[in-house]
C-alpha cells in the first residue's frame, strides 16, 4: 500500500517528479558518456604506447638511462647480442629487438627539420612493435631506404620515392650527411612518430653514424593481458628479473613510461566523478525540495494515516519510497540516455583527428578515432548511487513528516 500511495503521488505530480528525474538523468548520462570516452582514450593510449613506443620492458645501460632524453651515442649496451640472446630465453619474454635512437636533421633541399632517427633491425622489429600496421609504401628492404612520419612528410612536402638529405653527428662527434630514399610513410596513432621520426635499418645507421655494434636500447615484449593492472604487474615483475640478471644494465617497465599517462587518466576520472557529484547534488536538492512540498501538501493525509494507526516510521517510509522511486527513474533514464551515447561512441567513435585538426597534443599518444568502451560496472554503480541519492535526499523531509505530531497535522483538517 505504501508503494501504491507513493507511486500514485509521483504520477499525480508528474512534472515535478520528471524535472528532478531529468536532472539526475542528464548527470548520469554525461558521466557514462565521459567515462566511456575516457576509457576509450585510455585503452587507445595504452595500446598505442605498447605497440609503437613503449615496450613491456626497455633495457639500456645504466648511464644511458639518466640522459635518455638527449639520445646520446656514448652509452651503449655492452655485448648486446649476448644480452639479447639471454633475454629472449627468459620465461615471460615473447620477443626482443634492439633499437638505437639519435638526433639528426632532414632536409628536402629547401627546408631542414631536426628529427629523431630510430635505427631498427628490420628483421625482428615487427616482433615487438607494430610499425608495419601503419605503413604506406614498403618496409626497409634495401640499403639507403628510410621510413618517415606522415606529418613530417607533409611538412617537408615529400612522398614515397623522394629523396631526403639526412645530416647529423656521428658517434665520434664528426658530421656526416647522406641521401636516403623514402620507402614508406608511417601514419601511426602516435603524434611523436608522425611528426619527428625517421626510421632506418641498423646497417644504414652503422654506416651513417659510425655506430659499429652500438645498441642503446633493447625493447622487450611480453604477454598482454586485457586487464591493464595485470599487464603492469607483469612488466614490473619482468623488469625486476632482468635487473637481477643484468646488474650492470637498467631495465624500465612499461609502467615507468605510462606513469604520466595513467596519472592524467586518473585526473580525468576524478573530473568526471566530480561532475556527476555536482549534478547529483543538484538533483538531490530537487528531491529534497519536491518531497518537502509533498509533505506540506499532504499534511492532512499524514494526519489521517496517523489517526488510523500509521506509526511515525511508516509515514517516513511513505516519503522515502517516493524519493527512491524518483532516484530509480532518474537512474534508469540516465542509463538509457547514457547507453545511447556510449553505443554511438563504441560504434562510430569520436574522430579526434578531424575534430582537433592539426593542433599539437604534445606527447600525448592519442590520434585517429577514439572508440568508446562499455563499462557495465560503472553503469551499475552509478545507478545504485542515483537510487542512494534519492534515498538520502528524501530521508530529511521524510523524518520531518514522521516527527509531525498527530494533533498538529490534524489542525489542518
Amino acid at each position, binding site marked *: *500500500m505504501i508503494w*501504491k*500511495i507513493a507511486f*500514485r*503521488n509521483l*504520477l*499525480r505530480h508528474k512534472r515535478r517528479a520528471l524535472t528532478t528525474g531529468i536532472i539526475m538523468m542528464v548527470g548520469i548520462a554525461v558521466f557514462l558518456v565521459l567515462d566511456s570516452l575516457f576509457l576509450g582514450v585510455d585503452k587507445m593510449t595504452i595500446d598505442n604506447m605498447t605497440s609503437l613506443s613503449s615496450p613491456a620492458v626497455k633495457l639500456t645501460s645504466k648511464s644511458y638511462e639518466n640522459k635518455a632524453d638527449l639520445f646520446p651515442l656514448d652509452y651503449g649496451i655492452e655485448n648486446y647480442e649476448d644480452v639479447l640472446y639471454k633475454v629472449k630465453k627468459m620465461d615471460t619474454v615473447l620477443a626482443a629487438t634492439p633499437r638505437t635512437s639519435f638526433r639528426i636533421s632532414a632536409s628536402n633541399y629547401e627546408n631542414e627539420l631536426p628529427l629523431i632517427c630510430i635505427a631498427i633491425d628490420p628483421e625482428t622489429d615487427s616482433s615487438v612493435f607494430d610499425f608495419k600496421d601503419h605503413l604506406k609504401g614498403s618496409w626497409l628492404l634495401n640499403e639507403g631506404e628510410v621510413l618517415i612520419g606522415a606529418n613530417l612528410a607533409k611538412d617537408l612536402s615529400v612522398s614515397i620515392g623522394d629523396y631526403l638529405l639526412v645530416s647529423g653527428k656521428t658517434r665520434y662527434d664528426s658530421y656526416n650527411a647522406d641521401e636516403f630514399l623514402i620507402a614508406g610513410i608511417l601514419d601511426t596513432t602516435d603524434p611523436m612518430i608522425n611528426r619527428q621520426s625517421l626510421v632506418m635499418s641498423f646497417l644504414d645507421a652503422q654506416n651513417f653514424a659510425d655506430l659499429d655494434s652500438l645498441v642503446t636500447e633493447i625493447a622487450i615484449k611480453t604477454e598482454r593481458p586485457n586487464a591493464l593492472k595485470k599487464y603492469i604487474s607483469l612488466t614490473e615483475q619482468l623488469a625486476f628479473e632482468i635487473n637481477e640478471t643484468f646488474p650492470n644494465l637498467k631495465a624500465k617497465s612499461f609502467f615507468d613510461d605510462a606513469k604520466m599517462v595513467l596519472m592524467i587518466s586518473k585526473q580525468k576520472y576524478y573530473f568526471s566523478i566530480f561532475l556527476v557529484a555536482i549534478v547529483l547534488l543538484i538533483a538531490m536538492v530537487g528531491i529534497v525540495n519536491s518531497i518537502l512540498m509533498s509533505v506540506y501538501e499532504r499534511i*492532512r*493525509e499524514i*494526519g*489521517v*494515516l*496517523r*489517526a*488510523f*494507526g*500509521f*506509526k*511515525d516510521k511508516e509515514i517516513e517510509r511513505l516519503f522515502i519510497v517516493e524519493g527512491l522511486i524518483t532516484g530509480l527513474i532518474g537512474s534508469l533514464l540516465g542509463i538509457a540516455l547514457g547507453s545511447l551515447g556510449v553505443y554511438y561512441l563504441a560504434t562510430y567513435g569520436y574522430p579526434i583527428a578531424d575534430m582537433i585538426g592539426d593542433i599539437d597534443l604534445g606527447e600525448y599518444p592519442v590520434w585517429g578515432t577514439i572508440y568508446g568502451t562499455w563499462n557495465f560496472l560503472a553503469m551499475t554503480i552509478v545507478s545504485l548511487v542515483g537510487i542512494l541519492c534519492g534515498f538520502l535526499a528524501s530521508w530529511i523531509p521524510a523524518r520531518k513528516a514522521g516527527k509531525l505530531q*498527530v*494533533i498538529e497535522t*490534524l489542525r489542518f*483538517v
Partner: protein
Amino acid sequence: MTILKLEKIKKTYQKGSREVIALKGINLSIEKGEFLAIVGPSGSGKTTLLNIIGCLDVPTEGIVFYDRKPLTGLSENALSEYRKESISFIFQSYNLIPVLTVRENVELPLIIAKQFSKSEIKKKAEDIIKKVGLKDMIERFPRELSGGQEQRVAIARALVKKPLLVLADEPTANLDSKTAKEIIAVMKDLNKSEGISFLFSTHDPLVEKHAQRIISLHDGLVASDKRK
C-alpha cells in the same frame, strides 16, 4: 457496558508564554452503542476532549479507561497501536487519500491493522461500501465524487474495522442540509445494525436532534449531560 471512562481529565497548553487551561476536570463515561453529541461554543474544549478520547493527545492530569484498561503513560506509537484497533475518525473535510480509489480508501484501515487476509479485506470493504450505498462507485477516485459521497466513503472507512468507537468532528459541517440528513441517517443505521458507538462534536442542530445523548461543554467543564 461502559467502553470509555474519563476520570478528572485536565489539559493545559502552553500558548506562547501563556498557559491555557482547556479542560478543567472532566468526568464522563460512554456506553457501547451510544450515539452522542458533544456541543458547546468555540473554545469550550470540544476539540481537546475529542483529541484525548481519540488517543491523539494525552491529558495533563486524570486517567482515560478504555474497556476498563487505563491508558496512562503510553508512548505515541503505543497510542497509535491502540487507535489502530479500537478507534476510527470521521473528519469535517472527509480527508480521503486522493490517490486511492473508494475501495482502497476503505481497505486502508484493514491493511494498516495487518490482521486480515487479502480476501477478507476485500469482502469487508465491499460489504461496508454496499451499506453506505456506494457499490457503483467502488473503483472511483475521491475527486470523482460529490461531498456527500466522499463523506459516505469516510464513514465506510471508519466502520470497516468495527471499532469500539467512532469519533466524528463536525461531520456535516461541509454538507448541505439534505445531504447532511442522509449522512446522519446512514450513521444512525450503522450505529443500530453494527452496535458501534458514535461520538460527535458538532454545532449542527440536525445532529443534536438525532443524538440520544447530548453533553454540553462550557469553559472546560461539563455543563450538562442529557439523555433523550
